[in-house]
C-alpha cells in the first residue's frame, strides 16, 4: 500500500456525545442506528404477528395485558375484529418499510458500501444523517397510531382507497390513525430518496483507486442497484401519499368516486379513481419487493463465496441478473391488480414480464447451486443462513409461477397462498439475508465475535420453524382460505382450523427462538470473544481495516485495489485467498 495517499476527511473526528452517537455524520454509526431501528421494528412486528396468530385460532381467549395496549381494541384482553385489522396494518407496514427496507439496504448498505469501495464516508454525510432521522420520525409517526383512541388504521399496509381515503366513517382507525400512517409513509419516502441519492453518488464517485465497477463486491452492486430502484419507486409513492393525505384532510377527490354511501352518509366527493391509488401504490409496491430481496441476494452471495472458498461461476452474470431483475421490476406492478377491474388485456400484458422475471431469478439460483459444486464449503452460522436463504428463495419463488398467471390468480388471489408466497420469498428469505449479514459482519461492526453455538441453535429452529409456518399457508390458499379475516366464520374454512392451529404454534415457537438471537446479539456485543481484523479470511476491503473500524475507516489512507473482489482458491497463489488490496501478482493462467 505504498502509494496510498493521505486523505482529507469530509468531516473531522466526531466531538461530543451528540455528534458521536446521536446526530452522527459517520456512515457506520448511521448504519448501526438503522440496524437498531430495524431491530425494534422487527420485534414489534413479530409480537403483533403473535397476537394475530393467537387471535385467529383462539378468538375468544383473553391475552393478558392486551387491554393495556388498547382499551377499545381489546376490552378485557380479547381482541376485536377491527383491532385485528389494525395490528395487521401495523405488522405489514413495520415489516415492509422499517425492517425489509431498512435492515438489508439502509443498515448494512450504509455501514459497508463506503468501506467496500474504499471510501471514508458517504458522499453526503449530512444527507445521510437527515435520512436516518427522517426515517426515525416516520417510525414515531407510525407508532403514534397505537396511542390514538380508535387505534391504528384497519386498511392494511396497501391502504386501498377509498377505504383509506374517506375518513372515520369507514371504520375505526381510519381517522387520525390513517393520517399517521400516510404521514409516516410520506416521511419514509423522503428519507429513502435522500438515502438512495447518497448511495448512488457514493458508488459512482468515491471508489478507491483501482476499484472499477466490475471489481465491486456483489453486495455493493446489489445496494447500488437497489438504490436505483428505490430512487424511482419512492419518488412515485411520495406523490401518492400526498394525494391521499389531501383526500383525507383537504376534501379533494383524487381516489374517491362519486355516490359512495359509507355508514349511511353520502360522501361529499366526486369523480376520483380508486384504481389510480392501486396503480401508483403498486408501481412502488412491486419494486419494493426487490428493494427487500436484492440486498439479501447480494449479502448472501458475498458470504457464500467466502464460505465456499471459491468465487461464483460468473461475477458478470450475477450482476447482469440483478440488473435485469431491477429493470423488469418496473413492468410488472399490474400483476397485483389482475382482478381489480383494470382492462383484462392488461392482465396478459403484465403477466408476461412477471413470468420473464423468473428467468434472471432462475439464473441466480442455478449460479448459486452450480458454484456450490466442487467447493470447499465451510459451515458457519452465516453460511447456514445463506444456504437457508437459497432454499427459502426457491420455495417462495416457485409459488410465484401460479400467481403470475391471471387465470390461476382468479382462484388464488387474496388467499393464504399469496400470504405464503410473499412471506417466504421476500419476508423470510430477506430476513435470512439479514441474519446471515449479521453473523458475518458482527465482528467487524463491534470488534467481537458472535457465539456460534447459539447462532446454530438459532438457525436450525428458525429454518425448520419458518417452513412449518409458511408452507401450510400454501395449502390453506389452495383450499381457498381468504386472507385478512380476523376469524373464520365461513363453513368451508372450519375444517382448516387444525392447519391454522399448527401454524400458530409454530409461529409462537419460532418467534420465541428469535429471543436467542437477541440474547446472542446483546451478549456478544459486550462479552463476545475479541474479533480479529479478518476472522473469515475474506478478500474485500472491509476486512483490511481494524474491527471495529476507526471513524475514518482507512485511518486517513486511501486503499488501492489490485484485484477482482473474490480471489479465492487461486492456484499458485501465496494463500487460498488474495485480498483486493494485496499487490500480489496473480499467477498466469496456463
Amino acid at each position, binding site marked *: 500500500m505504498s502509494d496510498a495517499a493521505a486523505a482529507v476527511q469530509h468531516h473531522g473526528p466526531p466531538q461530543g456525545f451528540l455528534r458521536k452517537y446521536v446526530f452522527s455524520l459517520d456512515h457506520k454509526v448511521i448504519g448501526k442506528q438503522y440496524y437498531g431501528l430495524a431491530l425494534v421494528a422487527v420485534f414489534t412486528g413479530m409480537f403483533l404477528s403473535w397476537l394475530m396468530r393467537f387471535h385467529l385460532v383462539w378468538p375468544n381467549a383473553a391475552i393478558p395485558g392486551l387491554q393495556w395496549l388498547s382499551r377499545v381494541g381489546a376490552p378485557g384482553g380479547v381482541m376485536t375484529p377491527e383491532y385485528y385489522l389494525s395490528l395487521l396494518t401495523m405488522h405489514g407496514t413495520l415489516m415492509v418499510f422499517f425492517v425489509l427496507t431498512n435492515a438489508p439496504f439502509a443498515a448494512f448498505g450504509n455501514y459497508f458500501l463506503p468501506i467496500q469501495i474504499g471510501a471514508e464516508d458517504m458522499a453526503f454525510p449530512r444527507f445521510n444523517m437527515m435520512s436516518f432521522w427522517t426515517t426515525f420520525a416516520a417510525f414515531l409517526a407510525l407508532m403514534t397510531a397505537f396511542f390514538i383512541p380508535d387505534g391504528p388504521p384497519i386498511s392494511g399496509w396497501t391502504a386501498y382507497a377509498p377505504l383509506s381515503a374517506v375518513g372515520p366513517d369507514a371504520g375505526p382507525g381510519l381517522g387520525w390513525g390513517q393520517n399517521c400512517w400516510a404521514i409516516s409513509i410520506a416521511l419514509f419516502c423522503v428519507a429513502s430518496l435522500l438515502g438512495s441519492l447518497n448511495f448512488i453518488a457514493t458508488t459512482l464517485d468515491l471508489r478507491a483507486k483501482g476499484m472499477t465497477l466490475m471489481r465491486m463486491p456483489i453486495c455493493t452492486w446489489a445496494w447500488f442497484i437497489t438504490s436505483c430502484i428505490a430512487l424511482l419507486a419512492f419518488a412515485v409513492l411520495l406523490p401518492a401519499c400526498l394525494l391521499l393525505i389531501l383526500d383525507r384532510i383537504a376534501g379533494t377527490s383524487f381516489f374517491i368516486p362519486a355516490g359512495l354511501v359509507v355508514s349511511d352518509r353520502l360522501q361529499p366527493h366526486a*369523480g376520483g379513481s380508486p384504481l389510480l391509488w392501486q396503480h401508483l401504490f403498486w408501481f412502488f409496491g412491486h419494486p419494493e419487493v426487490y428493494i427487500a430481496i436484492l440486498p439479501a441476494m447480494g449479502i448472501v452471495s458475498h458470504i457464500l463465496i467466502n464460505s465456499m472458498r471459491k468465487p461464483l461461476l460468473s461475477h458478470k452474470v450475477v450482476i447482469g441478473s440483478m440488473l435485469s431483475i431491477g429493470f423488469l421490476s418496473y413492468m410488472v406492478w399490474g400483476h397485483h391488480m389482475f382482478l381489480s377491474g383494470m382492462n383484462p388485456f392488461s392482465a396478459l400484458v403484465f403477466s408476461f414480464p412477471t413470468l420473464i422475471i423468473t428467468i434472471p431469478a432462475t439464473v441466480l439460483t442455478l449460479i448459486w447451486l452450480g458454484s456450490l459444486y466442487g467447493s470447499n464449503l465451510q459451515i458457519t452460522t452465516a453460511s447456514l443462513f445463506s444456504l437457508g436463504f437459497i432454499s427459502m428463495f426457491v420455495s417462495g419463488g416457485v409459488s410465484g409461477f401460479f400467481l403470475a398467471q391471471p387465470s390461476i390468480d382468479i382462484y388464488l388471489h387474496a388467499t393464504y397462498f399469496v400470504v405464503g408466497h410473499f412471506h417466504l420469498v421476500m419476508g423470510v428469505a430477506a430476513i435470512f439475508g439479514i441474519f446471515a449479514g449479521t453473523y458475518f459482519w458482527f465482528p467487524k461492526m463491534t470488534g467481537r465475535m458472535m457465539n456460534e453455538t447459539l447462532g446454530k441453535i438459532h438457525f436450525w429452529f428458525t429454518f425448520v420453524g419458518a417452513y412449518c409456518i409458511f408452507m401450510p399457508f400454501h395449502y390453506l390458499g389452495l383450499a381457498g382460505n381468504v386472507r385478512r379475516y380476523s376469524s373464520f366464520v365461513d363453513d368451508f374454512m372450519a375444517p382448516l382450523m387444525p392447519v391454522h392451529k399448527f401454524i400458530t404454534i409454530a409461529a409462537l415457537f419460532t418467534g420465541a427462538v428469535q429471543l436467542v438471537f437477541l440474547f446472542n446479539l446483546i451478549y456478544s456485543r459486550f462479552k463476545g470473544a475479541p474479533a480479529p*481484523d479478518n476472522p473469515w479470511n475474506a478478500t474485500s476491503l472491509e476486512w*483490511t481495516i481494524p474491527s471495529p473500524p476507526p471513524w475514518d475507516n482507512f485511518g486517513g489512507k486511501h486503499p488501492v485495489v489490485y484485484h477482482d473482489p473474490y480471489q479465492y482458491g487461486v492456484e499458485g497463489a501465496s494463500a487460498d485467498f488474495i*485480498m483486493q488490496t494485496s499487490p500480489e501478482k496473480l499467477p498466469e493462467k496456463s
Partner: protein
Amino acid sequence: MATTVHEPPKIDPAPLQPSLGGNGGGGVNLPLARDGELRELMERPPEPVRTGIWVGLAAITMMFAAFTSALIVRQGSAVDWEHLALPRILYLNTAILLLSSLTLESARRKVASFVRGQGATRGQAMQVLASTLGLGLVFVAGQYVAWLQLRSKGLYIATNPNSSFFYVLTAVHAIHVLGGLGGLLLVTRRFARTVPTLRKSTLDAAAYYWHFMGILWVYLMFVLWLKL
C-alpha cells in the same frame, strides 16, 4: 476458521501498475485543497455533488411523472372535469423564472471571471447572484398571488379536480423552488466570505437545479394549459 491475516504479503507493487485496470472513479478521492482557496478547488475533478444533482433531478422528474400520470388517469375517470382559466399572472411568473435562469448564468460567468482574475469584481458577481435570488422570491410570491386569485373566484383545492391538481402541482413545484433558493443562498453565503469557500461543483449543482426548476415549470405550464 484459520488464523487471521492482518497485512497482505509485502510485494513490490511497482511492476503491477498496468494491472490496475482503469480507475473506476479512482483518483476522485484525491486530497482537496485545505485552505478553501477557490481557485484551487474549482479545478478539481468530479465531485459527488456533480453526480448527486443529476440523481436528485431524476427523482424529481419521476415524481412529477407520477403526478402527470395521476392527472391523466384522474381525467379519464372524471365526469366533473371543468376547464379552468389559468390566472394571467402565471405567464408573468414564467417570464420571471426564465429571466432568473439568465441572471444565474450571468452570475456563473461573473464568478468564474472573478476567480480567474479576468476582470469581474466580487461585487458584480454578488449583484447578479442577488438578483437571481430576488427574482426567485418574486416568482414564489407571484405563485401565491395566483392562488389568491383562484380563491377569490371561489376555486379552492377541493372545488373540482382541476383546481385540486392546480394547487398540488404548483405547490409542490413552489416547494422545490424554495429548496433551490436555499441552495442559491448557500452559494451566495459561501461566495461572500472573505476567503470564498464556494466550490465550482456546488455552484454548478445549484445552477443545474435552478435551470431544471425553470424547465419543469414550463412543462407544468404546458400541462396546466392543456389539461386543466
